C-alpha cells in the first residue's frame, strides 16, 4: 500500500489538523474527540450536526460553516463516530434552540447517534432529533434488513437544511420536516471500477478483474450487488441513471439538481464526461436540470468510479440550494 500517510492509526487525526490549519478563519476543533465546528459566533438558530466514518472526504467536516453544518463528528476510517463525541458536539454548538442530527443510514452511525441521544436526554442536555438519510437505490428497502444506505445525496440534505437553519424563527421540528422532505426527493446510485484500500487493511477491500465493474457499490468499499462486464461510459452511466430515475420515479416535467460524485480515485475529467451523458438522458426524458454539481463530494478513499444523484426540486429547495455556504470547499 502506497499512500501519503504516516501511521494508519493517525490518518484521521492528521487530516483534521490539516483541515483546520488550512481554514483558520472558518473552523475550530476538539481534536481529541474529532469534532470540527464553526468558528464564527452565531446565535439563536437550531444547530445542524452530521457525522460518519472518515474516508469520505470532503464529506461532513469539510461542509462545516455558515449555511451548512454547525459541527461534524468524524469517526475513524469507515467507522461511525463515537457517542461521546456526538454528545460533546451537540453541547458545543447548541444555542438553546436544539440540535438536528443528519445521519446516513448505517447501523453503526444510527446506533452511535441513538446512544448519544439517549445520553443527552438522560443528562437533560439540549433537545435533539434525528433524520436518517437513505438515498441509495442499489439497496432494496425492506423492514427485515438494514434498509437503503445513505450516500452522496446526503450533501443535498446538508445544504438545504443548513441554509434553512440560518433563517429566522426556524425551529427543530420544522427543520426536521424539511430534512425528511429533501431525503424523500433524493435518490442515488454508484458503481466502481476499482475498490478502495483502507489504511488499516492495506489492500483493496474487494478485487475486480481488468474487465469487470461493480454496480451499486456503497461508500465503504462494501462490494456492490452485481458484478458486470466493463462497459463504455455511455452504457454504465445510463444503467445507473435509469435506475435512479425509475426508483422515485422522476417524471417528465420534473425539475432536478444533478450530482455526479467522484468516488475518490477517478479524474475530474471523467466525471464531466459522465455529466454530459446524464444531461442527455434527462433531456430525453424531459426532466429539466436546474443545477449540476460535478466533483468529489462524498468519496470512498481512492475508489475509482462515480455515483449519480438526483434531487427533485420545489421553489424552496431551489432558493436554499442557491444560497452560498461559507465552507472550506465552496462547491455550494
Amino acid at each position, binding site marked *: 500500500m502506497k499512500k501519503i500517510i504516516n501511521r*494508519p*492509526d493517525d490518518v484521521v487525526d492528521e487530516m483534521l489538523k490539516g483541515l483546520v490549519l488550512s481554514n483558520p478563519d472558518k473552523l475550530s476543533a476538539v481534536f481529541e474527540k474529532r469534532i470540527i465546528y464553526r468558528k464564527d459566533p452565531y446565535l439563536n438558530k437550531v444547530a445542524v450536526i452530521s457525522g460518519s*466514518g472518515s474516508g469520505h472526504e470532503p464529506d461532513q467536516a469539510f461542509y462545516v460553516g455558515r449555511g451548512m453544518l454547525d459541527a461534524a463528528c468524524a*469517526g*475513524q*476510517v*469507515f*467507522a*461511525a*463516530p*463515537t*457517542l*461521546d*463525541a456526538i454528545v460533546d458536539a451537540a453541547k458545543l454548538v447548541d444555542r438553546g434552540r436544539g440540535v438536528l442530527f443528519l445521519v446516513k443510514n*448505517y*447501523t*453503526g452511525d*444510527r*446506533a*452511535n447517534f*441513538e*446512544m448519544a441521544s439517549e445520553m443527552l436526554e438522560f443528562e437533560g442536555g439540549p433537545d435533539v432529533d434525528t433524520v436518517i438519510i437513505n438515498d441509495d437505490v*442499489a*439497496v432494496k428497502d425492506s423492514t*427485515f*434488513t*438494514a434498509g437503503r*444506505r445513505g450516500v452522496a445525496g446526503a450533501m443535498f440534505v446538508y445544504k438545504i437544511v443548513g441554509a434553512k437553519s440560518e433563517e429566522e424563527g426556524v425551529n427543530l421540528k420544522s427543520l426536521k420536516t424539511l430534512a425528511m422532505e429533501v431525503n424523500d426527493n433524493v435518490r442515488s446510485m454508484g458503481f466502481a471500477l476499482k475498490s478502495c484500500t*483502507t489504511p*488499516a*487493511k492495506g489492500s483493496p*477491500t*474487494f478485487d475486480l478483474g481488468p474487465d469487470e465493474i461493480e454496480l*451499486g457499490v*456503497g461508500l*465503504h*468499499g*462494501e*462490494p*456492490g*450487488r452485481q458484478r458486470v462486464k466493463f462497459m463504455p461510459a455511455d452504457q454504465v452511466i445510463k444503467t445507473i441513471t435509469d435506475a435512479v430515475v425509475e426508483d422515485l420515479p422522476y417524471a417528465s416535467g420534473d425539475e432536478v439538481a444533478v450530482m455526479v460524485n467522484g468516488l475518490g480515485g477517478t479524474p475530474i475529467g471523467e466525471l464531466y464526461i459522465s455529466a454530459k451523458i446524464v444531461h442527455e438522458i434527462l433531456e430525453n426524458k424531459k426532466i429539466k436540470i436546474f443545477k449540476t454539481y460535478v466533483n468529489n463530494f462524498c468519496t470512498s478513499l481512492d475508489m475509482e468510479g462515480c455515483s449519480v444523484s438526483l434531487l427533485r426540486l420545489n421553489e424552496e429547495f431551489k432558493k436554499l440550494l442557491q444560497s452560498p455556504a461559507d465552507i472550506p470547499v465552496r462547491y455550494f
Partner: protein
Amino acid sequence: MANQKDTLIKVIEAASKKLIAAENELTELDSMGDADCGSGVRRGFEAVNGVVGEFAQLEVGDILKKVGFTLAYTIGGTSGAMLGTGFIETGKSIGDKSNPEIADWIKAADSALEVIKRRGGNTRVGDKTLVDALEPAVIAMKKMLDVLQPAEVSEYSSDALLQVMEAAYMAAREGSDRTIDMIARKGRASYVGERSRGNRDPGSLIVVLIFEAALEVLRSYS
C-alpha cells in the same frame, strides 16, 4: 479461589489479548463489509488495556461499565456501539453487587442481548450478526441454570460457573459457525446479498473469543 472481581479483570485481560491478536482475521472477515472491524476492535481493547490500572478502585459493575464506555468511545462503528452496549448493560444489570450470583450474571447477559438487538434495529437470529453467537449463548446459560442443582448455584460457585460458561462458549461457537452459510440481513455485509454467504460474521467471532477467554480463565482455577 480468586474473588469475582479479580476473575473479571483476568477475563478482560485475556479477552483483550485474544481480540488484539485477531485483528487481521476480523479485518478479513469484514471484507464483505468495510474491512474496519479488526482495527476498531484492536484500538478498543488497546484502550481497555490502558485503563486496567483503574479497575482496582472499582466494583464489578463499574468495571464492566468502564470497559463498555472505553470500547464505545474508541471503536466507533457498529462493533463499538454493540460491544459498548453489551458491557455497559451488563454492568448496569450487575449494579453494585460485589458478589453477584450466577443467576445475576445470566440476567445481565440477557438484558445486554436485548438492548443490543434493539440498538441494531431489531436484530434477530439469522441476520448474520453477533446476535447469532450471543443469543444462543444466553439461552444455553439459562438452560444450564435450570439443569444445575439449586444447591450448586445458591451462591457463587466457580464450578457451576465453569459449567455455565462451557455451555455458553459451545453455543456461541456453534452459533458463529452457522453464520458462515447465512446471507446477511443486517449490517454492511447485507448490501451484497447472496454474496455475503461463505464468510463467518466477524462480530460473532468477537463474542466467541470473549466467551473463550472467560472459559480459559475459569478453567485455570480448576
